[in-house]
């Protein structure tokens, strides 16, 4: 198989890589670029652990080919904190203990970031619907929802 040369932008930085034509973007991020924030839960678009934002759309990176990222813009969880300063959502996830094992957390953070970018003041129901594509088998979701509600209040006031 011939490699595909891809030029893309990840978290604001221009990035180039070679990938196989059938290689999921998730594998490119994790195995070629060392961006291991996005996780492989199911690999079939059901769990949301590999969520990223591709040209302002929340997607599962396991359901995107690495080759498709040519000329696009990618945001991953690695782009959320600025140096030592955590993103408000990250800070609120810590304060509300909205994680246990942590595997689903990067996906939830990115999905919540996308949700608040489009709807800065969501109702609890809108948060639950907005995050329904992300599965957590530890927390039972209530703490996650409360962390996102709290973050939304802080971000609105900012």
């Amino acid at each position, binding site marked *: 198989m011939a490699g595909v040369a891809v030029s893309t932008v990840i978290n604001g930085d221009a990035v180039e890589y070679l990938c196989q*034509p059938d290689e999921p973007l998730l594998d490119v991020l994790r195995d070629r670029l060392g961006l291991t924030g996005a996780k492989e839960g199911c690999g*079939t*678009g059901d769990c949301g652990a590999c*969520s990223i934002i591709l040209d302002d759309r929340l*997607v*599962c990176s*396991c359901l995107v*080919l690495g*080759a498709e990222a040519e000329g696009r813009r990618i945001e991953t969880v690695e782009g959320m904190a600025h140096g030592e300063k955590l993103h408000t959502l990250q800070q609120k996830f810590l304060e509300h203990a909205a994680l246990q094992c942590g595997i689903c957390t990067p996906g939830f953070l990115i999905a919540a970031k996308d949700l608040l970018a489009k709807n800065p003041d969501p109702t609890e129901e809108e948060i639950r619907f907005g995050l329904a594509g992300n599965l957590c088998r530890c927390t039972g979701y209530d703490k996650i929802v409360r962390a996102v509600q709290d973050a939304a209040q802080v971000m609105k006031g900012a």
Partner: protein
Amino acid sequence: MRYIRPLSIEDAVGQLARAVGPAAILAGGSDLLVRMKGGFVEPELIVDIKGIAGLSEIRETAEGFSIGAAVPCAVLGENAALKKAWPGVVEAAKLIGSKQVQGRCTITGNLCNASPAADSVPALVAAGAKAVVVGPSGTRTVAVEIVPTGPGKTSLAKGEIIEAILLGKRAAHSGDAYLRFIPRTEMDIAVVSAGVNLTLDEQGVVKAARVALGAAAPTVLLVEEAAEALIGRKLDEAALERLARICSGACRPIDDKRGTIEFRRKVAGVLARRAATTAYARAGGK
């Protein structure tokens, strides 16, 4: 394996027509990549159609709407004019998968994946949608219901690509609706489903109707007898009762882990009745 991203539909058609081994069209990838990962398909050529001009656009034309084959379902939900004209089609498209999947999946892909349980297909069939098929010998426009021929199978020939789905201009006093049964509140595959599209006269009498059932047979069913039961009447109890009975009788479902034959038959009638009631209200009927 090769991945290509042609910039014209002619190039894409040519590459697919000349392909020696199995070839696959990639738009949203929410079915294709899952099937590749599971080893169910091993294409030697992947043709990504998202680079082709116009395929990622919804156009409002004199005849209605043209929805490009690469338009993600999330974009359908953001198009106010489309939602107003065809709320049933949009609500069906919006039921497919999570927000993550919505950002990728397309109604053309949903049609071509040819699952009997595809959510957008009964709504499209009820809406009388057409598919614009481009192939090596030219372009043809076909009714969407002739595209899937059985689970996983379509009537598309080698080299053919659906370029767009067409929805007609709305007549006054028209409405459509789609409902499905799933055991959860969202993000599941339809056990059975129904799409209904109605046009009324000034008095609220049904002038035109189309009724389609999903997950009730190997392909989505267009139930003409059910439509005839509604035409020429207001949507009274007797008409709804007849609609439900005809829909239950038209089903040829299977028993599987999602539901039994008996359950699917009964619920197909219930959903058709409820979808008709919603479509009627949307058309302004009282």
